[in-house]
């Protein structure tokens, strides 16, 4: 069977890879949008926190014999705690300054984390096995779907929607959104805004770490995995606009799929297609697909 002159297996295979990449773009741009929404900081260390999540899973398995499922919970908690400490001790001093300083600080943080892991573990990737429950593949008739990849898509969608619900549908989320609009007034109502800021940064970093654990069996665990993906995620965020949580999620999946399809039709451009889409969106619709602010 052929589709647009391409064998359907190849087409579906690339579409699946696109959807997997899109799952990570969505999780990461969601975390960036959550942090930016309240802290007004572009978290350059997001890629490093994603890498930390993957390494946490790897090290827990190597030295503690901790299983994948427990690592999926523990790694985000560890990374979230570390992020909370960084926010309390250092990042919180920068909120009153221009937003660019927050970005420069987290850039430095990312360099330190990445450099440290490179120093101790080298630049090469290390394999992390998928859990035994999810090895193997299912034959869907038109293609063979590896079970772990199906799980990545399901897990990413679930966590994205849960985060959206947390922010848009719960009381805590209402505080968060209110603090985004007017922190002084929210504080006057007796809500601990600095604590809210710390929790938000920890939540965003935890989301990145969760994505990292999910990614560990798909890609190799390497100190450079974060910096390779973060710049693409920035482009995703520019296209989606950070004004809307749902916008960040939808754009993440869409651009992942666009990247996968480019691999089918014009492989040479697959590295740059997201940047090209970003440039076109900026020319046609400067505020981004879902954004309000320019």
């Amino acid at each position: 069977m052929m589709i647009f002159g391409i064998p359907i297996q190849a087409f579906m295979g690339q579409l699946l890879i696109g959807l997997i990449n899109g799952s990570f773009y969505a999780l990461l741009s969601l975390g960036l949008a959550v942090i930016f929404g309240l802290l007004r900081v572009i978290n350059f260390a997001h890629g490093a926190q994603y890498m930390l999540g993957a390494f946490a899973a790897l090290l827990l398995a190597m030295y503690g014999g901790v299983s994948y499922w427990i690592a999926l919970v523990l790694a985000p908690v560890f990374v979230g705690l570390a992020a909370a400490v960084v926010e309390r001790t250092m990042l919180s001093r920068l909120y009153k300054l221009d937003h660019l300083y927050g970005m420069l600080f987290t850039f430095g943080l990312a360099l330190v984390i990445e450099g440290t892991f490179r120093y101790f573990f080298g630049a090469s990737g290390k394999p992390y096995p998928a859990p035994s429950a999810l090895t193997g593949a299912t034959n869907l008739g038109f293609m063979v779907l590896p079970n772990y990849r199906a799980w990545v898509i399901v897990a990413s969608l679930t966590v994205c929607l849960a985060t959206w619900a947390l922010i848009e549908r719960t009381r805590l989320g209402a505080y968060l959104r209110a603090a985004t609009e007017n922190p002084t007034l929210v504080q006057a109502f007796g809500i601990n805004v600095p604590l809210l800021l710390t929790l938000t940064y920890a939540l965003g970093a935890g989301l990145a770490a969760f994505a990292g654990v999910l990614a560990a069996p798909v890609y190799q665990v390497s100190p450079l995995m974060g910096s390779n993906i973060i710049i693409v995620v920035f482009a995703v965020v520019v296209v989606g606009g950070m004004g809307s949580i749902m916008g960040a999620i939808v754009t993440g999946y869409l651009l992942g799929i666009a990247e996968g399809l480019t691999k089918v039709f014009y492989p040479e451009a697959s590295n740059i297609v997201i940047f090209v889409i970003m440039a076109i969106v900026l020319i046609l619709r400067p505020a981004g697909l879902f954004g309000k602010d320019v």
Partner: protein
Amino acid sequence: MAHATTPAAGPDAPAIAVHPQAGRIRAGILLALLALSLVAPMVVYPIFLMKLLCFALFAAAFNLLLGYTGLLSFGHAAFFGGSAYFTAHAAKVWGLTPEFAILTGVAGASLLGLVIGLIALRRQGIYFTMITLALAQMFYFFCLQARFTHGEDGIQSVPRGYLFGLIDLSHTATMYYFVLAVFLIGMIVIWRFVNSPFGMILKSIRENENRAISLGYSVTQYKLGAFVMSAALAGLAGGVKALVFQFATLTDVSWQMSGEVVLMTLLGGIGTLLGPAFGAGLVVTLQNYLATSNFPVTIITGMVFMVCVLVFRRGLAGEFYASRLGRRLGFNPEN
């Protein structure tokens, strides 16, 4: 980015009378620096000095945008490294003389600056920064795949050639004075630019963009002008670097390079004329020193970044200008 350029002497600082001979002393310091740069190659390894001058010019060009216009570009490696590629290609494949090879690089960097600037200036603030980073990364992938850049190998053994067809630049000493001359010309251009009416308008945009708009200035065009100017000067630095080292590689177009120039400027002092050059000197020296140890440079770079942002936002020059001595001598960010 109003906070970036903390005034050297804040309103709370006690008034210090400027020394009556301050102007002469400042000129004397500049002359001493110039004399030092003339004799330096006899004491220090000249290739290292040339590298230092190239990065000093690069940082000063970057600062034109960050310090005087308030725009943080995270994609300046595209202009620096792109120009290195263009220059190397022009000198090696087309066989142009060095001055025309460098001009080719500068023209390419300006064109690239125009395109990236036009797209990135559609958004403001933090988005502008992310867009420049993304577009520069796109250019990196282009350089990785394009045929003329030779991918991972880069363009190697680029001839330095004969300046104006007469002066042989393959002698290290001759090359050094050529690089020094280019650096000085670049710095004079920046100084003239910053103190021109155009530069005044840029500073007014930095301080209060809305007021500049209400006064009838087409702010975006001025920003674009500054962006292209900064890209061209970064290209000048990159082109010269390609001739000094006789190669052009992917390192110079990578995002790490964009980050390095931000660090040099931050460390030296955002919005000061000479600060970024000193910042560049410090960073290059540090890298050179660490290159021999097996301790990774990125950790140090990252830590310096964090410390600078947290407690040292004025940078070296900014702190000096704000100090008793600096104010006594009448230093300010524009001279």
